[in-house]
């Protein structure tokens, strides 16, 4: 609970901004205009932005304002009531659910809006094709013994020093949390791991550093890097594809969540329904993530009638 204090302080800034945004919107348009505030995960910022832009064409009376800050920041803003929707690349923690009930008088509701395979990236010239989760742990986790590319039985000519450069996110990132939980089995990272401040920076550095290995969302792939296939113990190596993410055969995939307080209503519900519909899901794949399987996708919602948009 104490950890929420600082996040609330950060959220206070968001509140001020939100209030400013709402006020200016109300002043600038003659007719009523609904503003949906949406904040959270950095992994999801690209897709959230794309949804908001596309939705503006579908429903001109609704404006969706998107901000990043990280999953925890978005959830804190939801608890404080400064946003209608929080983006999160990890499930809500029990303490956060409890705080939502206390502060808002309703349970948070989870909406899975797509999936992301957390991809292990290496330099494009790296001969390694796949790793087992055990090798990944031996490489990244404290006490692990793998430190050279030759430990994988390959000769990596672009990296004559043979030493593996491990690249990670900073400790406050949700992606860091998820990787430690899912890939390292809650072990701590090895000392000497480089910590960078963004998913994109990780992939860029891997692309410029032949000896490097790093992890990031699948939406950040570039031609300069190679995505490794991963295998569970004894299993076959699985590439981070859409299919493998959906059928859970890729071992470190995660849902991308949106959270609301209570069941969504009104414009919020219409927006989430649209995100779950085929047009919304097409954006998920366009940004590079995995859309929901057809069974989970809703019908195309009828565009709101003008009377609904401007009551």
């Amino acid at each position, binding site marked *: 609970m104490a950890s929420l204090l600082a996040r609330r302080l950060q959220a206070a800034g968001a509140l001020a901004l939100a209030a400013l945004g709402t006020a200016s919107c109300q002043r600038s348009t003659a007719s009523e205009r609904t503003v949906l505030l949406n904040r959270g995960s950095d992994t999801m910022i690209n897709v959230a932005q794309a949804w908001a832009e596309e939705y503006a064409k579908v429903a001109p009376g609704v404006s969706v304002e998107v901000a990043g800050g990280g999953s925890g920041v978005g959830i804190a803003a939801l608890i404080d009531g400064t946003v209608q929707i929080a983006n999160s690349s990890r499930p809500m923690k029990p303490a956060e659910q409890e705080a939502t009930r206390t502060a808002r008088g309703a349970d948070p509701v989870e909406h899975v809006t797509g999936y992301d395979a957390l991809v292990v990236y290496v330099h494009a010239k790296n001969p390694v094709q796949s790793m087992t989760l055990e090798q990944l742990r031996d490489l990244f986790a404290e006490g692990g013994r793998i430190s050279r590319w030759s430990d994988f039985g390959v000769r990596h000519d672009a990296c004559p020093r043979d030493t593996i450069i491990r690249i990670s996110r900073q400790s406050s990132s949700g992606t860091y949390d998820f990787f430690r939980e899912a890939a390292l089995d809650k072990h701590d990272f090895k000392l000497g791991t480089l910590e960078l*401040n963004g998913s994109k920076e990780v992939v860029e550095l891997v692309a410029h550093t032949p000896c490097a290995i790093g992890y990031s969302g699948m939406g950040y792939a570039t031609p300069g890097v190679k995505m490794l296939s991963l295998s569970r113990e004894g299993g076959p190596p699985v590439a981070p594809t859409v299919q493998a993410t959906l059928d859970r055969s890729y071992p470190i995939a995660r849902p991308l969540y949106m959270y609301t307080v209570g069941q969504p209503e009104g414009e919020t519900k219409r927006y989430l329904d649209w995100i779950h519909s085929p047009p919304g899901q097409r954006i998920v794949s366009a940004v590079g993530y995995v859309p929901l399987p057809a069974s989970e996708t809703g019908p195309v919602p009828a565009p709101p009638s003008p009377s609904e948009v401007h009551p």
Partner: protein
Amino acid sequence: MTEGAPGSIGFRRSWHSLAAERGIEALITVCGISAVILVGGIFFFVFREALPVLASPNFSLGEFLFSVEWYPTSVTDVRYGVLAMIVGTLAVTALAMAIAVPFGIGGAIYLSEFCGPKVRETLKVVIELLAAIPSVVWGFLGLTVVNQLLITVFDAAVGLNALNAGLLLALMSLPIIVSIGEDALKAVPDSYREAGIALGATRWQLVYRVLLPGARNGLLAAVLLGVGRAVGETMAVLMATGHAVQIPGGLLDPVRTLTANIASEMGEVSKDSEHYRVLFAIGVLLFGITFLVNLAADLVVRGVRRR
């Protein structure tokens, strides 16, 4: 200048001009003392935030100072050891000074003794511009240009490392060293130069035997301000060092500095938690390092004076 009774110099002063004089004197005194109050205040507030963890029984100062294991968010075993970051800070600072001091002092000598007024004015403007570049721009340069350069030239495994940060910090502290060093050399009385030339000294002998010893304190102050800049710099080192917790084995190894660590973790840490307080303890440590540097400098200057 205001010694002696006002009347004795020959000015006649009215009652309120005397009062204004007193008022201005008081104001100037407050200005002078304000620095002491400010430094004391900053130290007090930083120390107050750090105190609860420093005094807590779980916290071992020995582990804090002499362990390299920094795991503030571990789910299994939280550890706070900053030795690697102390070494990282000292390493990039030493590296930066090894590059910046010869170039800086050399530049100062050139500006004050060897170049014409036109060249000097141009160079001074350029050097001031160098000082005006924001540190995040330096960091950006380190992340992209220097990173690639180190990989190509030195065949480094990764371009974000101690050398990258050292190069950036050298460039960042260079303007300070040059401009203050130049002032110090300029402050050496011309009679010294004339005396040297009269004795038949060459230009180089004049610089080496007369000006450098004459301007020693000022040059030392210039170097120390450069050191201060390098120790306290945050944004550029956060972006250029690779931000890895380890004792570097060489110039091409990534490191993490104390300042960059505070910057990257303070934003997300929950207020009043143990981690939050440990970050303030690092602040106190940085204060201590700066204090030691200044103290050492002061002692050296005194030693120079006594000789």
